[in-house]
C-alpha cells in the first residue's frame, strides 16, 4: 500500500512561513523541508509533534527573510 507524504505550508502577507509535515519518518521531514526552504527562509522555530517519535511527523515553523 502506498504511503501518503504530506506537507502544508502557510505563507502570510508579512512573509512568515509555517510548515507542517505528515506521514514522514525519521529525518525525512527535516530533509524535505530543508530542500523546499533552502535560501528562501530562515528557520526560527522547530517543534516535533508527539507522533514524530512514532511516525516521524514534525511540525516546523519557518520565518522567511521578511518582507514588510
Amino acid at each position, binding site marked *: 500500500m502506498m*504511503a501518503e507524504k504530506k506537507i502544508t505550508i502557510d505563507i502570510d*502577507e508579512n512573509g512568515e512561513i509555517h510548515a507542517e509535515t505528515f506521514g514522514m519518518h525519521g529525518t525525512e521531514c527535516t530533509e524535505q523541508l530543508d530542500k523546499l526552504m533552502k535560501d528562501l527562509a530562515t528557520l526560527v522555530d522547530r517543534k516535533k509533534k508527539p507522533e514524530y517519535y512514532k511516525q516521524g511527523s514534525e511540525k516546523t515553523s519557518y520565518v522567511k527573510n521578511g*518582507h514588510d
Partner: protein
Amino acid sequence: MSEDDDYDGWQEVEWTELRNVELRITVGDVTSVDIAEVIRTCRTALSQKAEKLNVILKNLNVYEYRDAILVNDEYGTCPDLEEILKAFGLRVTAVECGLKGKSYVVTDEILDALRVMDPSYRTTRIQFEKCTDEIAGVISDAAKHDLYDSETIGIVRSFAGGDGVTVTGTQTVTYLDDEPIEYGKIESSEREKTISLAYEFFSGLERKTGRINAHMQEGTVSILSSRARKLGYYVQTKRRGGKVQLVLVRNE
C-alpha cells in the same frame, strides 16, 4: 466742482496691471507621500526581491542592460522560470537571442519608478554576466518600461531632492494711483500642469508600492511550488484572505 474732486489739479486714478508672478510648488501641494520613505521602501523591496530571485537566478545566466535583465536558462534547470518571474510582479518577455535554452527579458515597475526619484540605485545581489552588444540589443528591443517624460522626471527629482518647483503665473493687480489696492487670483496653467504630472506619478507609485508584499508573497509561493513539483509532490494552492496555503502531497 468741489474742492475734494479737484485738489490742486490732481484726480485719483484707478488702474490695473497684469503682472507675471513666480510660484513655488512643494511636494505637500501634490501628495501626502513622504518621498524619502517611499524611496527607502522601493530600495528595500528591490533588494528583497533580488535576494529571493537570486535563489533561482544564481543557477542561470543573467545579463543587465539599462535597468532590464536578460535571464537565460541554458540547461533547463528552472522549467517554471517565466511563472516565477511573473509571480514577483515582473514584466517578462520571452526572446530568441542566439543563446541555448530559454531566455527572458525582465523589467520591474518599482525599479522604473525608483529611477525617476533616485537614479543612483544599483543592486549588488545579483551576479551579472558580461553583456555583449548583441545581447544589449536584444534587451533594448524587448524591454518594457514604464516611460516617464522629461518634464515629469524633472519635477519628481526636484521634489525627491527636497526642493520645490518654481513656475510662473499671472495676476491682476489693481492700483489706486500708485498704491496696489486689490490683488486678483493668480492664474497659472503651468502650476496646474506641474501638479497634475506630479500627482499622476505619485498616485501611480502608491499603487505600485501597495502591491509589493503581494508580489513577494506570490513569488515565494511560486518558488516553493516549483521546488515541490521537482521533489515529486502534487501541489495544491489554497487562498484565504491574505494567506496562501500550499498543500504538497506525494505517495510512495
